[in-house]
């Protein structure tokens, strides 16, 4: 069995195993499975290091994939949906992130029994592992159809995990999450179908024009294309398809094809990111879901939106991205500032962290929207960095919630004195979210800001946007420091005196994240950029030439 399939479906196997495990051992099985998955995903590094020296192996040409698995799945005569998995610079760090966060979240679920829910652990851990399969599948699937299936697959366990094991308003939150995501999926589905048919037409037309039976594949040597395809890389690289997609005369529903499809996909992915004003599911989902699920939600699920942009929206519809850049960037900037302002207004600890996610993911959107090298690199980095710092923050909130049974910021105080170890970890986590240099949050923000600025040649509006976005450093510092002051500093309160400091298990979750926060901040090249930049730069070059500006 090949590596990627194993990684993706191992959690499913684990879920099956959970079915028959005695109740008291279920969490053990789940932890073991998620840990093995994590270790297996680490073996992907082997692929990378097998490459030659300093040059990233993920950057030979756009579409260089590794560990590919390719098999026909559903085939008709002009129709082929493939089981097509692969890894490149876009997905690689996200896979590692997913397995890591899942493992840590599983560890965070260890005290399941004390959650005071009347549902047993069996269903919880089964759904948890299925969720992991869904997430991993999204990141490795390269066939759009398969991608869509994994996308929906991950939705359902999440719905139940929030809706059954959540807080008091869990059903509201779960439905909200579900409806929003589903709304996005509908548009994505339309795009999926339209892309297939239009690519089919493009290929047919090209075959007629050139008088050949088969069109050469855009990225695979010696392979031909004879009909429409769901292969995301093919859609992005095949000149015939790209030419037809990007042509001004290609219309769909009376509008230009590329911008329209871009907009459809954009909304689909942006809901997940999320963007203002489609973000309101996020705070509710976070507040209501149990801590480990919050960690996954913030750490991995939000990244799917950004990944979707980088994998599908921009490479396949570069001209769409270029045409709509202003609006996309505008949404990004609004998300940054608005998210920060909303965060400042919150008194619920978890809600505050949730809004800060909106703000941080705005940077991802802005970085991608401006289509510059450092913008894209920064956006990718920001995704990873946020994938590390936000689960940490959510776990920190969870730790204190388990002890205090409330999350009112104003009712806390002096926790650093009561719980020194925990306080130290909290400082690292929240300062990483603040974007302090030397921690992971900084690199992404600065890269994106400088990238936005560098887009001045292409987009005259880039400078004001960069300046407004940069002003958020003040707002971010404002709400995070205010939070730290209210929760961790100040005089120790009577009612919290008896709180135990972070337990070894909790430290085991926090320390790896803290170490990564620092490692990413100090050595961005070695931890992220080396893996991502090769693919990103090539992808960007292709996007720019596709948009007619490169």
């Amino acid at each position, binding site marked *: 069995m090949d590596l990627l399939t194993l990684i993706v479906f191992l959690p499913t196997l684990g879920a099956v195993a959970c079915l028959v495990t005695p109740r008291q051992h279920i969490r053990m099985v789940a932890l073991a499975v998620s840990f093995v998955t994590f270790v297996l995903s680490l073996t992907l590094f082997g692929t990378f290091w097998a490459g030659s020296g300093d040059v990233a192996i993920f950057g030979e040409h756009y579409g260089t994939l590794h560990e590919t698995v390719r098999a026909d799945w559903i085939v008709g005569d002009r129709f082929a949906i493939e089981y097509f998995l692969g890894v490149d610079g876009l997905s690689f760090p996200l896979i590692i992130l997913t397995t890591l966060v899942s493992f840590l979240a599983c560890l965070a679920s260890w005290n399941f029994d004390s959650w005071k829910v009347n*549902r047993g652990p069996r269903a919880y851990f089964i759904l948890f592992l299925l969720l992991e399969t869904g997430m991993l599948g999204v990141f490795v699937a390269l066939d759009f159809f398969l991608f869509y299936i994994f996308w929906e697959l991950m939705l359902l366990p999440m719905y139940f995990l929030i*809706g*059954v094991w959540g807080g008091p308003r*869990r059903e509201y939150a779960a439905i909200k999450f579900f409806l929003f995501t589903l709304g996005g999926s509908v548009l994505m589905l339309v795009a999926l179908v339209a892309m297939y048919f239009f690519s089919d037409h493009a290929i047919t037309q090209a075959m007629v024009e050139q008088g050949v039976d088969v069109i050469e594949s855009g990225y695979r040597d010696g392979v031909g294309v004879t009909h429409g395809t769901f292969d995301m890389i093919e859609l992005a690289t095949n000149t015939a398809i790209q030419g037809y997609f990007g042509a001004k005369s290609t219309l769909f529903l009376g509008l230009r094809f590329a911008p329209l499809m871009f907009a459809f996909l954009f909304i689909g992915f942006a809901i997940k990111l999320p963007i203002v004003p489609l973000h309101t599911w996020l705070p509710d989902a976070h507040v209501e879901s149990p801590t480990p699920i919050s960690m996954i939600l913030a750490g991995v699920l939000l990244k799917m939106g950004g990944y979707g942009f980088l994998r599908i929206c921009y490479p396949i519809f570069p001209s769409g991205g270029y045409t709509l850049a202003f609006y996309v960037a505008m949404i990004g900037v609004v998300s940054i500032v608005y998210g920060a302002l909303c965060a400042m207004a919150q008194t619920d600890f978890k809600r505050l962290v949730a809004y800060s996610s909106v703000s941080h993911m705005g940077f991802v959107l802005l970085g991608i929207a401006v289509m510059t090298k450092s913008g894209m690199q920064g956006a990718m980095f920001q995704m990873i960095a946020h994938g590390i710092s936000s689960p940490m923050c959510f776990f920190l909130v969870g730790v204190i919630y388990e002890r205090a049974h409330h999350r009112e910021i104003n009712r806390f105080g002096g926790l650093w004195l009561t719980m020194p170890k925990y306080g130290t970890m909290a400082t690292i986590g929240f300062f990483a979210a603040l974007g302090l240099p030397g921690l992971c949050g900084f690199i992404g923000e600065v890269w994106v800001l400088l990238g936005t600025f560098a887009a001045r040649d292409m987009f005259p509006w880039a400078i004001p946007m960069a300046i407004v976005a940069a002003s958020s450093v003040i707002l971010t510092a404002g709400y995070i420091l205010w939070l730290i002051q209210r929760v961790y500093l100040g005089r120790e309160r009577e009612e919290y005196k008896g709180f135990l400091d972070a337990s070894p298990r909790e430290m085991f979750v926090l320390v790896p994240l803290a170490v990564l926060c620092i490692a990413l901040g100090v050595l961005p090249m070695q931890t992220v950029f080396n893996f991502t930049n090769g693919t990103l730069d090539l992808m960007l070059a292709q996007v720019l030439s596709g948009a007619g500006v490169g």
Partner: protein
Amino acid sequence: MTIGVTHFLVVGAVMFCCGLYTMSTKRNAIGILIGVELVLNSSALNLVAFDRYMGAGRLDGQIMALFIIVLAAAEAALAVGICINVYRNLATVDVDKATQLRG
């Protein structure tokens, strides 16, 4: 005044909407099931109509309709089984009252 594909589609659309209405207003589990059957039938009708008027000799639409019938039968069998079970346990098939599985 020839009968074209649109005519059948309109009939299908009406059936679909009726099915939808039934699904969303009935609180009896079997009632909802009936709505589902209506929706399934309307889609099967569409498939057959398309097959007839623009299938160009291929039978995909009919085959698909055939499978729909099979699946509908299976689904009805299961659903009725569940309903009977629910009824046995709760003495009602009012879906709004069957809330034991809620978390």
